[in-house]
C-alpha cells in the first residue's frame, strides 16, 4: 500500500470526499439540534442557549470533535478544489453545443461551485459567531430581578448566571471584577466565585433580529437573513447530489437499498437546510 494510492489516485481522493462529506452531514445534524434552542423563547431560552454555548466550548469530547470537523471542512474543500482543477484540465476544449441537462442534474455538475459558495459562507459564519465567541468581546449574560427596596420602592437589580451552581446568582455590583470575560471575582480578586456565561444568544438575536433585545435597531438584519437563507439553498443543492453520491463513491450500491439512500439524501437535503434557514427567519419576523 503506497502513499500515492491513498492520497493521489482519483478514486482514493473520492473516498476522502465521501468520508469527510458524510461526517460533515453528521455535524450538520448536531449543529441544527443545538440551533433549534433558538426557537425557545424568553429569558429561559436565552439562558438555555448560553449554557449550551458554554458547554460546547468547554466539553473535552466536543473539543476533539470540533477539531475533526475543522479538519474535515479543510480537507473536503482542498481535496474538492484539487479534483475540480483536474477535471477542468481533463477537457481543455469545450463543446460548442452541450445538452448536459439531458443526462444529469445541474447540482451534480456544479458541486465545486456550490461547495465554494458554502466555503465562503462558513468563513463569514465563523467570523460572525464562532470568532466572536472564542476571541471577541461578548458581554456576560445578566438578568434583572425586581425586589423591594428602601421606602417601599421597587428596585431593579442585575445578576450574572454562573457556571458554579453553588454560588449563584452573583449580583452585578461594583465589587465584582470580571476577568477574562468569563470569571467573576468578588472584592478580593483571589476569590473566584464562578464563571459567567457569554451572552451568545443576544449576539444571534442582534444579528438576525430587527433589534437586539429591544435596544439598538439593526438595519442590516434583512440582509443577514437573506444571505443566510440563500446559503442554505446552496447547501441544499450541494446535499441533493452529495449525500447519495458519497454512498456510490464508497461502493455502497445495491438494487434494494440505493433507492432508499437516494430518498433519504433528498429528504436530508431539503429538511436540514430548510430548518436551519427557518431559525433566522423566525428571529427576524417574530
Amino acid at each position, binding site marked *: 500500500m503506497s502513499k500515492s494510492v491513498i492520497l493521489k489516485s482519483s478514486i482514493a481522493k473520492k473516498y476522502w470526499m465521501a468520508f469527510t462529506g458524510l461526517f460533515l452531514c453528521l455535524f450538520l445534524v448536531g449543529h441544527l439540534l443545538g440551533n433549534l434552542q433558538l426557537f425557545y423563547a424568553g429569558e429561559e431560552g436565552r439562558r438555555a442557549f448560553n449554557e449550551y454555548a458554554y458547554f460546547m466550548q468547554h466539553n473535552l469530547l466536543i473539543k476533539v470533535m470540533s477539531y475533526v470537523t475543522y479538519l474535515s471542512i479543510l480537507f473536503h474543500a482542498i481535496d474538492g478544489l484539487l479534483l475540480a482543477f483536474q*477535471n477542468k484540465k481533463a477537457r481543455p476544449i469545450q*463543446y460548442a453545443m452541450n*445538452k*448536459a441537462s439531458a443526462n444529469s442534474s445541474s447540482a451534480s455538475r456544479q458541486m465545486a461551485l456550490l461547495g465554494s459558495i458554502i466555503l465562503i459562507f462558513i468563513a463569514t459564519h465563523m467570523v460572525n459567531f464562532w470568532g466572536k465567541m472564542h476571541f471577541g468581546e461578548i458581554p456576560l449574560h445578566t438578568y434583572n430581578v425586581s425586589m423591594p427596596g428602601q421606602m417601599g420602592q421597587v428596585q431593579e437589580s442585575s445578576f450574572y448566571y454562573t457556571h458554579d451552581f453553588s454560588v449563584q446568582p452573583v449580583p452585578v455590583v461594583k465589587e465584582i471584577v470580571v476577568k477574562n470575560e468569563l470569571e467573576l471575582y468578588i472584592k478580593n480578586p483571589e476569590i473566584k466565585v464562578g464563571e459567567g456565561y457569554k451572552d451568545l444568544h443576544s449576539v444571534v438575536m442582534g444579528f438576525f433580529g430587527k433589534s437586539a433585545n429591544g435596544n439598538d435597531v439593526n438595519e442590516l438584519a434583512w440582509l443577514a437573513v437573506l444571505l443566510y437563507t440563500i446559503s442554505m439553498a446552496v447547501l441544499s443543492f450541494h446535499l441533493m447530489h452529495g449525500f447519495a453520491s458519497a454512498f456510490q463513491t464508497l461502493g455502497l450500491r445495491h438494487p434494494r437499498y440505493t433507492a432508499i439512500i437516494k430518498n433519504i439524501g433528498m429528504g436530508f437535503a431539503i429538511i436540514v437546510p430548510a430548518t436551519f434557514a427557518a431559525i433566522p427567519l423566525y428571529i427576524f419576523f417574530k
Partner: protein
Amino acid sequence: MKLTLKIWRQSGPNDKGQIVTYPIDNIEGNMSFLDMMDVLNEELIMKGDDPVAFDHDCREGICGMCSLFINGEAHGPDRAVTTCQLHMRKFSDGETIYIEPWRAKAFPVVKDLVVDRSAFDRVMAAGGFVSVNTSGNTVDANAIPISKINADKAFEAATCIGCGACVASCVNASAMLFVSAKVSQLALLPQGKVEATERVLNMVRTMDEEGFGNCTNTGACAVECPKEISLDNIARMNREYFKAMLTSE
C-alpha cells in the same frame, strides 16, 4: 428533409479547428446518421472539397468505432444506440445539427471528427485481461461453475464496446464507466479473481495517467452509453479498489 449541419473541421492534430456550416438536402428519415454523413461527403468530393473525416466500421452497433457528439449528446438524442444506429427520423425538417468530436484531453483530435482513443487500449493493456496457461494443458473456461447472477452481470459489463461515449458525456471527461465495466467483467468471474488486486490498481493508475477526469457521480455516462452499462459497475470498481488499496503490498 432539409438540414443545416454545423460540423467541427480540423485539418490535423495541431490545427486550431472551427465549426463550419453545411446545408444539406434530400435526407430521408430511414437513413442512418452515418448515411447522412456519406451523402454530405459525396457532395463535398464532387465539389472538390475535403470530405469530413469520421470514424466508422461495422455500422451495426457492435464495434465501437463510430462516435460523434451530436446536438450536445454522445451518439445523438436517441438512447441505447450508437451513431450508426441513429436514424435521421429522430430529427425534424429544417433542424440545425451540431456535430463535434469527443472532447477530452485523453482523446486528442486526429482530424475533423476522428479522435485518438488509444488511451483506452493502454488502460486495457494495464490489466484488462486474465493470464491463462497455454502450454498444452489449457483448462476449458466453462469447466468452472459460475452463478447465473454473476455470469449475467459479467456479460452485461462485457457488452461495453469501448466507444468512449462515457468520457465524451462526462462533465469531467472521466473514464470511470469504461474502466469499471472492464474491471467488473473480470472481477465477477473466478478466472479474474486471481489478478483482481493488481488489475484494479494498475488500470486505475493508467486511467489517471492518461489524463481522464475524476468521477463526480453525475450519471451522465450511463444515460448516454449505447450499451446501457450500469453505474453498478462504478460502485463495484470502487469496492474493488478499496479492497485492493488496503490489502496490496
